[in-house]
């Protein structure tokens, strides 16, 4: 019996001891694991600093089309503040058209610029003067004198920050380095959140006892005993759940963190990590972003009261939300000021002054451009692993032009509102998309993905794949010009046609309003978007040739060789359309679209740059002839409404597109500076009742009207020349002879049938080249003058 009991006891003891050993080992393994997690995550700073994304900086040079008001607006957008004297970076002074600007230190793709004083003159249209106003702040006297008034051929403003890519859990932050942390923030945050930060080892026994005591006396939780280190651990590594297990994990991790890293590293990480508010789905983390979000300026430029408000927010960003609960926020700020004063971190006068000032909130600066960021993200994805982008605090430089973006956004929202009000369809809202690019470089400067321009969600500019309707026609006419058998004056037949398709059915296309125009010159058939003439032309050229032309211009997925391709049943996204039209706007050179110009690592070293890439997609002379026909679309054809919306005299080229039963309204075209496409339609593909000219064209034209773009005036290739033809009959004529004379470009020495009694020889001084010659003489005289 006893032996049995003893052996049972022994067995128990063995089990207990081995259990303890297993537990201890497990505990140790757990600690080692946490230690590993802490060091790995923290060391490489592999938590979640997303890549920081910048829009293109505004380039200033004499003649740049930037008015004094534009300039001031841009300075405000960049959070420059008006002040006198202009004593530190971030301040400017304006007197009429004259600006003194103290530009901040900025990292660009190709250089790091130190703070610099510049003097800028601008009038109502453009920049008229640009000079260095002073040396760098630390320059000695001699250097200063030398720099005084020195001409500055070109100067760029700061690249505006537009957000972060791959913000994990919707987080967004502006990462501070130790040098960026103001001394008052450093001591203030310790004072308010963790007085014994410099003494403890991650967990503060005194603090816990004090908190426990306070909580017991109050009968509820009024104080947390968490150190800054624990708060940091909690934010980095742990969920929000309140449990003993989590508390223990937090404590162990905090201790391990302190064992491996300096107080300085932990404090800076804390300041970068701490949660300070919520902007819709975007969480505001870190004092850098907090400063931008609440005060629209960098942390270094905050005054005492503003810093105190941010420090106070840590305790409860939603409870003390200064935008929603100004009184609570003010009381909290003043309490922090009082504490700072008692700790002699600020003097009494400063505390009193700060307590008496308003909160100083500003609307969050910069714009949130989700549709553009979406494109940036996709372009980056082609070249990077997602984890790399989330990790290292990269700087991504993009070609976004915030002014173009604002213009496109306004054009979409205003026009859709108007069209909805005019409503042909009851219920539901029209949607729209716009993309604007610079055709020579392929730089995408604006993307609007829907009418709710500030919202994430379905990005129609990149993802709405719709039939392009007549937007396909320029590819057909280009293919025809390339054969050499056709030119703008060639008469083609707009007459009914029936085709037996491969499935045995009969296809009988119609013109938009079921008319038949008969014999028309090619230039008019394109300008007025005649379907029958185009189908006949396309069939003569051959479907394979048309599809191949589209592909050369930039269509990635090959089009199906069905005759209805000729009327644009091919489906494309606005992004694909803009790629195709870029080749037309760029003299036949396809420029690969790019949103990302370069990516720099945290130290400012280039990781990758995306260079301008151009390929000849079509013979430049054929493209030139086509482009000149496309200018007739906007003067004589379906795109005529554009003129009224654009600055007087601006020459633009473009094409309307309407898919079957007006489900999709398109306009694609270009000026001398930009290529752009606009789409309007319903998400559920309902009939809109809008042609391309009624829906998309106003959006397109309003966007480009705001951009002060140059007229489309490509350099004529040497193989072509201008001739006058009758728009109605295609016969060679002169303006004196025919009221409908239009100038077209045709290969040199093309034999054109002349209108009886007209033709170039019968009139003097009115043939295109003579007119132009006179203008050039006049111009030369002007220059010599």
């Amino acid at each position: 019996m006893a032996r049995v009991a003893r052996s049972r006891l022994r067995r128990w003891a063995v089990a207990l001891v081995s259990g303890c050993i297993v537990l201890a080992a497990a505990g140790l393994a757990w600690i080692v694991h946490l230690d590993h997690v802490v060091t790995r995550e923290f060391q490489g700073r592999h938590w979640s600093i997303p890549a920081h994304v910048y829009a293109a900086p505004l380039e200033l040079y004499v003649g740049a089309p930037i008015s004094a008001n534009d300039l001031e607006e841009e300075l405000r957008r960049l959070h420059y503040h008006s002040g006198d004297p202009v004593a530190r970076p971030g301040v400017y002074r304006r007197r009429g058209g004259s600006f003194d600007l103290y530009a901040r230190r900025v990292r660009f793709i190709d250089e790091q610029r130190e703070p610099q004083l510049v003097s800028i003159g601008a009038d109502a249209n453009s920049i008229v003067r640009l000079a260095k106003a002073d040396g760098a702040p630390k320059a000695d006297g001699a250097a200063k004198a030398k720099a005084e008034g020195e001409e500055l051929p070109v100067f760029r403003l700061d690249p505006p920050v537009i957000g972060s890519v791959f913000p994990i859990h919707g987080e967004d932050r502006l990462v501070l380095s130790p040098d960026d942390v103001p001394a008052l923030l450093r001591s203030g945050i310790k004072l308010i959140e963790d007085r014994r930060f410099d003494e403890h080892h991650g967990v503060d026994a005194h603090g816990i006892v004090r908190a426990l005591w306070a909580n017991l006396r109050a009968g509820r939780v009024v104080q947390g005993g968490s150190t800054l280190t624990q708060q940091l651990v909690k934010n980095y590594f742990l969920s929000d759940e309140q449990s003993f297990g989590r508390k223990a994990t937090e404590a162990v991790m905090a201790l391990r963190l302190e064992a491996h890293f300096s107080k300085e590293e932990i404090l800076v990480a804390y300041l970068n990590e701490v949660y300070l508010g919520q902007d819709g789905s975007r969480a505001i983390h870190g004092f850098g972003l907090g400063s931008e979000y609440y005060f629209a300026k960098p942390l270094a430029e905050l005054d005492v009261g503003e810093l105190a408000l941010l420090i106070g927010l840590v305790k409860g960003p939603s409870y003390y939300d200064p935008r929603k609960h100004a009184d609570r926020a003010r009381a909290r700020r003043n309490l922090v000021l009082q504490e700072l004063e008692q700790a002699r971190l600020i003097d009494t006068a400063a505390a009193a002054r700060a307590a008496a000032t308003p909160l100083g909130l500003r609307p969050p600066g910069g714009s949130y451009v989700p549709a553009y960021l979406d494109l940036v993200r996709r372009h980056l994805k082609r070249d990077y692993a997602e984890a790399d982008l989330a990790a290292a605090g990269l700087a991504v430089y993009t070609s976004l032009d915030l002014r173009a973006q604002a213009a496109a956004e306004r054009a979409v929202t205003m026009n859709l509102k108007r069209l909805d009000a005019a409503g042909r369809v009851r219920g539901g809202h029209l949607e729209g998309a716009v993309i604007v690019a610079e055709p020579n470089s392929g730089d995408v400067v604006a993307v609007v993905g829907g009418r709710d321009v500030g919202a994430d969600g379905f990005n129609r500019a990149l993802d709405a794949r719709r039939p392009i309707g007549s937007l396909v026609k320029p590819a057909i006419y280009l293919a025809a010009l390339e054969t050499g058998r056709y030119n703008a004056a060639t008469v083609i037949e707009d007459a009914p046609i029936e085709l037996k398709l491969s499935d045995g059915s009969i296809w009988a296309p119609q013109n938009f309003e079921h008319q038949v125009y008969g014999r028309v010159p090619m230039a008019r058939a394109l300008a007025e978007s005649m379907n029958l003439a185009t189908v006949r032309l396309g069939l003569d050229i051959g479907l394979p040739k048309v599809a191949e032309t589209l592909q050369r211009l930039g269509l990635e997925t090959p089009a199906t060789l069905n005759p209805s391709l000729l009327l644009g049943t091919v489906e494309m996204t606005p992004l694909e359309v803009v790629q195709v039209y870029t080749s037309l706007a760029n003299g036949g050179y396809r420029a690969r679209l790019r949103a990302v110009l370069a990516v720099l690592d945290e130290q400012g070293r280039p990781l990758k740059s995306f260079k301008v890439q151009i390929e000849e997609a079509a013979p430049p002379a054929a493209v030139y002839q086509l482009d000149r026909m496309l200018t007739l679309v906007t003067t004589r054809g379906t795109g005529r409404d554009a003129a009224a919306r654009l600055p007087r005299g601006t020459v633009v080229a473009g094409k309307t597109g309407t898919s079957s039963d007006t489900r999709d309204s398109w306009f694609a075209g270009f000026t001398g500076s930009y290529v752009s496409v606009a789409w309007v339609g319903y998400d559920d593909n309902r009939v809109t009742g809008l042609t391309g000219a009624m829906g998309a064209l106003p959006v397109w034209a309003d966007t480009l009207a705001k951009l002060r773009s140059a007229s489309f005036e490509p350099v004529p290739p040497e193989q072509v020349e201008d001739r006058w033809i009758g728009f109605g009959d295609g016969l060679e004529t002169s303006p004196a002879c025919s009221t409908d004379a239009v100038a077209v470009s045709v290969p040199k020495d093309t034999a054109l049938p002349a209108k009886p009694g007209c033709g170039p020889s019968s009139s003097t001084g009115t043939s295109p080249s003579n007119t132009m010659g006179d203008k050039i003489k006049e111009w030369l005289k002007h220059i010599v003058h």
Partner: protein
Amino acid sequence: MAQAYRSLTTLAAALGAAILVSGCPAPSRRPEPPANPTTGPQSSEPVTPGSPAPSPPPRAPSAPRENHLSPATRSLVTQSRTLASRGDLDGASSTLDRALRIEPNNPLLWIELGRLRLAESDAHQAESCGRKALALASGDRGTQAQAGRLLADALRAQGRNQEAIEIERQPFMR
């Protein structure tokens, strides 16, 4: 490679000197066209033929022109060359991008970019730049010749000597 680059930069410098010297403050574009009078009441598609809207102003081919750089783009080209001479070809390229954003249709900038692409051993892109520059230089013999030399170099770098010789036989190269 390094030697090739050195000879290229020498070439580019010589070429650049020519560009810088030829720079004068006159505008490089043709004059603004006269304003189009706005059209009358406008309908959507389709339109009736013979509507009174005027056609765009006609233009003459091969009008004598001379391309040059503005002070802003000239200073950027100089900066770009400084970066290239230090071996920072990416930086040089980014700086040229800035110049192209200011004067996208200036063939001299495309020639400069093509030279840089050659230095980067990207003869294919150099060829595209050369062809584009040649198209933009239409009517400007001096610039056409520079573009032609770039194009010939880019073709030779790809082993397409016969095509290079054909370019060099073009009238504008003489």
